């Protein structure tokens, strides 16, 4: 069914896109976070920006509010004053009208309507009147022909709430108060509404009639002015924030630049360039910092030099001692061999002593050999004798060497070798020594159970894992096993007679190849050592073809769906790159 397929395809694509976006966003966020963490200048500028924006916003709002209040209040007061004066005039005129009406009508020459007269005065529509900046609406819906307006104001322009409020006030006369209302009003004949202040008040005439008087004051100019002020505040605030940020950036730069130089110098110092020094300019704090730094670097270099010398002396001492011990040892060995060969002629006590001496001499010899090897490493004299070999052959040779020991321990080997050759550029002797060490180790600690040897390879690397099912390692011991003369249980005797340097040498061998030697172990689950070597000696390793944790353990973990105790990386080097 093609359509669902397409659909699924599309959905997956979308998900992929989303995933890609998320990944990119996460990466970008990571970059930003990293840049943020690393740049003091950025942190200071950002903090300044945040603080100054906050201050400017608060100040701007406060300022704008104050200006608004003072302008609008002033205008409203003026408007209320004008409206009040007009209402007084209207009230006066209308009460006058009542008096006039009380008089006998004077026929044809009746005076013009006082309402008209007062409206003329108020609106400036008389002959000598001038235009007022507001419009007036006098409304008396209860009497015919008693409503007037100036300009284009219509009764419909009065805001509904204001009118309702005034209507409610009618009963309260004379304790009424004028009310104001601000609204956007669209007057007749105008295309858009204007902000207008409407003041509504009541004028009551002695005769009982009540006039609603509305004043319409245009607020467009004030609105325009305030919006200009607000714009100015925003622009100035923005400028101020930018200025502050620039200042902060400049100041920080002045401080941070020397600090950055100091950091770079420290880094170079840390990377071993002990003659790195800062330039001292002036007498300020930063100059003093530079001077102190230089002094510190000088002292440090001196100390390191002394320590190096001391270490050199020690190493030389060990090497010399080892060499010096070999000559008498050879003599002692020859004598011991004679004694050992003739042991059957001795008394049982003497024969046993000869055997013991022989065994301990062998151990002594191998220990001396290991010490010499280690001192070669310490002296940096170890070199690789590279050769392209099939690692499977090396493994098989190492197993062949270990078979006698395995038999003694009733241990069987289980080999898991790939079918293809696993070619790598390695020092045959050293790798074989590593594997032998690992196998001996596995046999010794395997408690007679099977030892699994797995070989794996990928494009860049080959790996060999040696797994035993012995008592395993306690947490934290994965790194300790590579220490010189380290012993899991000091009370436990060495059955094979290891020197305590085997794994340390193996580790050095692996490192010399640019490879990793890592250990995994869990109490009761056994131990696994994994040797990973680049196919080209010295190339950087990105990962290992074999997992460090045995697959069955990993699977069991997944099945249980529970977290295992945190596994510490097996070693410092390479652990971080382990992508398993």
């Amino acid at each position, binding site marked *: 069914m093609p359509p669902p397929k397409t659909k699924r395809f599309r959905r997956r694509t979308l998900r992929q896109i989303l995933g890609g976006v998320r990944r990119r966003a996460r990466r970008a966020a990571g970059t930003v976070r990293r840049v943020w963490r690393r740049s003091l200048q950025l942190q200071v500028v950002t903090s300044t920006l945040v603080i100054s924006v906050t201050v400017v916003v608060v100040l701007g709002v406060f300022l704008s509010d104050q200006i608004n209040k003072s302008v609008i209040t002033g205008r409203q007061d003026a408007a209320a004053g004008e409206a009040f004066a007009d209402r007084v005039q209207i009230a006066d005129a209308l009460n006058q009208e009542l008096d006039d009406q009380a008089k006998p009508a004077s026929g044809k020459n*009746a005076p013009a309507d006082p309402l008209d007269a007062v409206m003329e005065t108020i609106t400036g*529509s008389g002959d000598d009147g001038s235009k007022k900046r507001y419009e007036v609406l006098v409304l008396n*819906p209860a009497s015919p022909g008693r409503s007037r307006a*100036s300009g284009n104001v219509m009764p419909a322009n009065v805001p509904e709430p204001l009118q309702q409020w005034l209507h409610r006030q009618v009963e309260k006369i004379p304790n009424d108060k004028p009310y104001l209302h601000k609204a956007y009003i669209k007057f007749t004949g105008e295309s858009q509404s204007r902000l207008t202040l409407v003041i509504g008040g009541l004028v009551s005439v002695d005769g009982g009639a009540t006039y609603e008087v509305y004043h319409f004051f245009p607020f467009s100019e004030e609105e325009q002015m305030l919006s200009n002020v607000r714009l100015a505040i925003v622009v100035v605030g923005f400028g101020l924030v930018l200025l502050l940020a620039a200042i902060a950036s400049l100041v920080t730069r002045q401080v941070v630049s020397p600090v950055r130089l100091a950091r770079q110098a420290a880094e170079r110092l840390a990377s071993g360039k002990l003659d790195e020094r800062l330039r001292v300019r002036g007498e300020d704090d930063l100059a003093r910092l530079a001077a102190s730094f230089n002094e510190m670097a000088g002292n440090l270099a001196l100390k390191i030099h002394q320590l190096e010398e001391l270490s050199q002396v020690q190493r030389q001492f060990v090497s010399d001692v080892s060499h010096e011990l070999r000559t008498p040892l050879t003599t002692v060995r020859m004598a011991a061999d004679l004694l050992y060969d003739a042991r059957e002629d001795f008394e049982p006590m003497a024969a046993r002593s000869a055997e013991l001496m022989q065994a301990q001499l062998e151990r002594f010899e191998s220990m001396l050999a290991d010490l010499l090897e280690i001192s070669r490493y310490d002296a940096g004299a170890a070199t690789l004798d590279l050769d392209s070999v099939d690692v499977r052959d090396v493994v098989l040779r190492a197993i062949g060497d270990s078979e006698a020991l395995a038999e003694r321990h009733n241990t069987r080997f289980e080999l898991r070798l790939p079918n293809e050759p696993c070619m790598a550029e390695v020092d045959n002797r050293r790798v074989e020594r590593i594997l032998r060490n690992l196998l001996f180790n596995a046999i010794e600690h395997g408690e007679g159970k099977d030892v699994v040897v797995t070989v794996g390879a990928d494009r860049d690397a080959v790996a060999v894992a040696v797994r035993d099912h012995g008592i395993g390692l306690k947490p934290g011991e994965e790194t300790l096993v590579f220490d010189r003369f380290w012993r899991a249980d000091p009370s436990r005797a060495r059955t094979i007679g290891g020197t305590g340097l085997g794994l340390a040498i193996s580790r050095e061998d692996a490192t010399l190849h640019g490879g990793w030697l890592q250990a995994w172990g869990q109490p009761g689950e056994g131990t696994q050592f994994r040797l990973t070597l680049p196919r080209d000696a010295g190339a950087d390793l990105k990962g290992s073809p074999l997992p460090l944790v045995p697959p069955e353990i990993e699977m069991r973990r997944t099945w249980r769906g529970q977290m295992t105790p945190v596994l510490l990386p097996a070693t410092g080097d390479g652990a971080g790159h382990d992508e398993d």
Partner: protein
Amino acid sequence: MTRTSRLGAALVLAAAVACGGAGCAVIPVGGPFPVEEAGGGDLSKPFQRMIAVSPRNDWNAQQVVQGLQAAMAAYADDPEVLPEYLTGEAAKTWQPDGPVTVLGNSPKYEYVGKGDGKEVRIRLTGTPVARIEDDDTYVPISGAQPQRIDFLLLQNEEGAYRVTSMEGGSGLLLTQDDVSRAYRPTSLYYLAGPPGVADPATDRRLVADRVRLRVKPTENFAETIVRRLLQGPSRALSGAVGSVFPQGLSVRSVRSADDRVVVNLSGPIDAGGVFADGLKAQLKWSLNANNVANGRIIEVQLDGEPFFSSEALTIPAILREEWLDNDVRPAYYTSKGAVHSLNDDGAGNAVQGPAGQPGEIYTKLAMAGGGDLIAGKHQKDGGIWVTRVAPDGRWEQWIPGDDLTAPSWHRDGTLWTYDKAAGVVLRCDVTAGRGPERVAAPGLDNLDVTRLRIARDGVRVAVTIGENQVMIGAITSGAGATMLGNFQTLTTVKDEEIRDIAWRDGERLLVLVQSNAVQSVREINIGDGETTQLPTGNKGLKSLTALSDRVLAATQDGGEVLEFKRESQAWTSKVESDADNPLFPLG
């Protein structure tokens, strides 16, 4: 100087700069600086309007009629309220068309018959004072009898009264207050001469047309003026004046912009072929005469674009050319039949030629526009004789006749008179080589025309009928031929006698009226009949002449020539003896 004292000095300096520069003065003082001229000025004057309110159910019948009248006053602004006062059927049939009747203020409302019940009749009694015609002409009615208008009201289901019919009146009824509130007397200016032949080369004159325009709340008054100007002249001037604005032209807006007033027109006008000077004059005078856009540049646009495709049409704030003929001209008077000039300080010299010779043969003298010809009526043969004001001039008979009215010069050089015997208007155009010929004047048929005066604008004509009526007409061109038409009564006097008339300018006519004991000089605006009374003093006046602000009169018996002083509102003597018949050229 130590470091601390240096720091202190810097701080003091900074504080001084901050205080002096900004802190102390909120508004900085100083100057003088050039100022941008604010383009203020409104295109309309403030005005107030009647607001119509809806009828209330608790109103009595009289209040409903009063409310209806108020709604009529507000009808043009808010036509939706008025029908609420009428019953459903009446609302369907009622028409607001036709002339607006203007009643005197405070009309009376009274019940005719019962004051309550289902059907009530309210009588409105008021004195009609004027009529506003469809063409916005304001026609005053003087001395009319009070008009009675009966309103029949019916009570509806809710018990509220609504008007069902109006008897004795039609259209809108407004009071004088309503009119003065909502209407503005407005002068519009058109080109002199019959429409369609406006020739830029000949007569660059404007004629005022006085109308009452309703102030519209939705547009400025300048726009109202221009809109009305585009509609063409009122009936009094139809066929007599022309306009550069063709039919169908409309105004989009008139607005203030910086230093100018922008008139935006729209419609079919040939921008290239238009008589631009006429357009400028018409617009400028029509706006400025009504106190709109005074002293401001007027820019005319067509559909929002410059009027001429290449450049804008602007009318300068001050137009040098005088389009209204109100120039200062010398005054003359006759002394013992000889025409003398009238100087500022009194009597002047006699004019050259036979007119300056003493003799009582020619009376009712009139001087042509150029001051080079004087016409007079021959005492004996009754004909009109004319002489040039020159040493070699001599009297020649231009129009023979026994019973002619005083001659009147037209500004184009023709001489007009009315032959009372034949009942015809005569015109003599000597420059064109034509003798006296009849001019049709259908409006004057069978009327006793006693005076005929042609205004200085060359269009308006004033005639007196008998001794108690003044009519105003215009020289029109009907069917290609010149004729006098559009006659309307300007004023009628009762128990009084009209002694003389004189044109002051194109809009105002002076009428000398004599009642039994009292004389009065009335200045009547021929457009809307607005009358101003001039004081007469105790010397009886015989004849009048006027030119713009100067008014001269001859006394009845003293042989004096008086001049009216506007400042003191009194007549002062210019020539104290042997003076008669003061005259200005034309008029």
